[in-house]
């Protein structure tokens, strides 16, 4: 009379090992697939302060805007569509809306507007959509650049009426743009209560850090150790402390200094690609340590995860990946695709 074990959640960790010099490497395609990134954590062994080139890249990340109580039909405004959406420069995500309780909205740079709605809201909206595989939700995915959604077209008016008079969806909204596209958002911003934010950077210098050898260590233990370092969990396992009994797996060396940098906000794939370039440059500098780790956290409440795919709630690690970069241009890319039904992208 035991619980059926075939129902237990199984996790899968995919490890991709290749080199940046190989032109078929998947790093840039992987980075570009995750449109909305919440946080990036870096671990730079052997550094006690952020190198200047890295600092300048972090400072150059474009700021993003938070609009409070934006009625979603404003995203269909003709002027906004022409100036921002059609240029392919805008990223938008509803803020503080929980995937399993509220209605969530995402606006992607390729002009797709994705609404993840619960059953009642979907029936009230009255627009075509598909039932989501997860959680009794319905997904309305609209290509705003398509001819049927051109302003004045039938599909456009149907969605506009739905959002304006029937459903009246209104959420806090995070909006960001490609560099140089800021002016296109101003007309929309000026109509509502908005604030500008810069991605927040925090740095921590770690002393006397025991670390494993990243090349030879088992991936699960390595990722656990990286997570413990990022979360500031002590891996001393002293007998007087009951908080954590984590230890460094296969302890290989002891670092006198290491720098943990964390950037959070609405980050775009473009920012990450520039950061990876700088980190590669950093690795070429003469130094003791030959590796750097970069972990990317996506938004847990975003209606889209990889590409246009749907997000499954509270699955642990679906929109999340880790990149270990080495001195010789090789890398290890770790990611954990969620459900047993969908493979890695």
């Amino acid at each position, binding site marked *: 009379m035991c619980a059926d074990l075939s129902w237990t959640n199984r996790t899968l960790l995919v490890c991709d090992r290749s080199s940046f010099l190989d032109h078929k490497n998947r790093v840039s395609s992987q980075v570009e697939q995750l449109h909305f990134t919440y946080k990036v954590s870096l671990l730079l062994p052997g550094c006690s302060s952020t190198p200047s080139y890295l600092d300048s890249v972090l400072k150059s990340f474009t700021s993003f805007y938070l609009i409070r109580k934006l009625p979603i039909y404003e995203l269909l405004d003709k002027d906004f569509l022409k100036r921002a959406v059609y240029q392919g420069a805008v990223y938008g995500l509803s803020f503080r809306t929980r995937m399993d309780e509220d209605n969530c909205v995402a606006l992607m740079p390729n002009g797709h507007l994705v609404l993840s709605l619960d059953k009642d809201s979907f029936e009230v909206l009255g627009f075509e959509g598909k039932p989501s595989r*997860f959680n009794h939700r319905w997904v309305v995915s609209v290509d705003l650049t398509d001819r049927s959604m051109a302003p004045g077209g039938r599909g456009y008016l149907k969605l506009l009426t739905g959002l304006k008079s029937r459903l009246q969806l209104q959420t806090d909204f995070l909006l960001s743009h490609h560099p140089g596209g800021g002016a296109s958002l101003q007309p929309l911003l000026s109509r509502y209560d908005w604030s500008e934010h810069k991605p927040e950077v925090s740095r921590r210098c770690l002393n006397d850090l025991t670390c494993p050898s990243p090349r030879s260590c088992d991936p699960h233990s390595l990722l656990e150790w990286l997570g413990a370092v990022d979360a500031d969990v002590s891996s001393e396992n002293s007998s007087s402390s009951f908080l954590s009994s984590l230890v460094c797996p296969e302890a290989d060396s002891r670092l006198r200094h290491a720098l943990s940098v964390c950037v959070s906000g609405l980050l775009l794939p473009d920012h990450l690609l520039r950061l990876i370039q700088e980190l590669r440059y950093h690795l070429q500098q003469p130094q003791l340590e030959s590796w750097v780790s970069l972990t990317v956290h996506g938004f847990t409440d975003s209606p889209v995860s990889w590409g246009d795919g749907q997000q499954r709630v509270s699955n642990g690690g679906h929109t999340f990946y880790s990149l270990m970069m080495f001195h010789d241009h090789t890398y290890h890319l770790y990611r954990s695709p969620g459900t047993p039904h969908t493979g890695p992208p």
Partner: protein
Amino acid sequence: MAVFMDLNLVFSADRSHLQSMIETAAHLGFSTVAVNYVFEPSTKKKQEIPSPVPISELIGQLPVVQGRSRPIRVLNRLTVVISDVSHFRPTAPEYRCFDLLAVQPTTEKLFHAACMLYDIDIICITVTEKLPFFFKRAPIYGAIDRGLVFEISYAAAIRDSTMRRYTIANALCLMESCKGKNVILSSAAVKALELRGPYDITNLGQLFGLSDSDSKESVSWTCRSVLLHAETRKTASGVLHTMKIQQEAPQDSAADGDASAAKRSKPT
């Protein structure tokens, strides 16, 4: 809305006690709770069915659910523990004041009757003792077709380790027969400390034999179906809703408007 609900908070006469339970539930993220009046009739003594205290008297200002801008919704529920056929009177007018109606059958015959005949919303599965009877597929599927749900409560499991064994054993027994359909998990909490968050209950559901998605549904979607079922119980086929209008000449009139949220008696 696929929001989280806990449909079993045991009523206590102490107002502050109940208030703290409702505040804890709101803090944990539940959008709807139901205050449960347990009524155990005995053939020897004539007892009165308790009448529900109006929510506005119970708690002044309803607390806002954590993470949302709406206050928590509080409903009234009656659970009748039946050990004899005469205990449940289907046409009793006292049942009308309650939003939800539940029974807890103690024999197999009563369980069969509850599943197939009684006009109720929830069938409670006993968790404090060994199951007095085995579940048969026929009445369970009959109940599922009618839109009834089976309830497992977990507060007993928190209090005592023997109860924990009974809870898990009885729950697994139920899941074998009903395959995880139409099940809700609720607390039956007597104090605020016995409440747990919705995601914790989802994990607990997996221990009871529910699959990942069924477990999540048991705290959200199935509870929503129960509420809609309860609303339609008071209507005629879920379309007509009658209201007594206060007039000088004593007469009822049927109003055609105000159709309830579900147009079908069995929401899908």
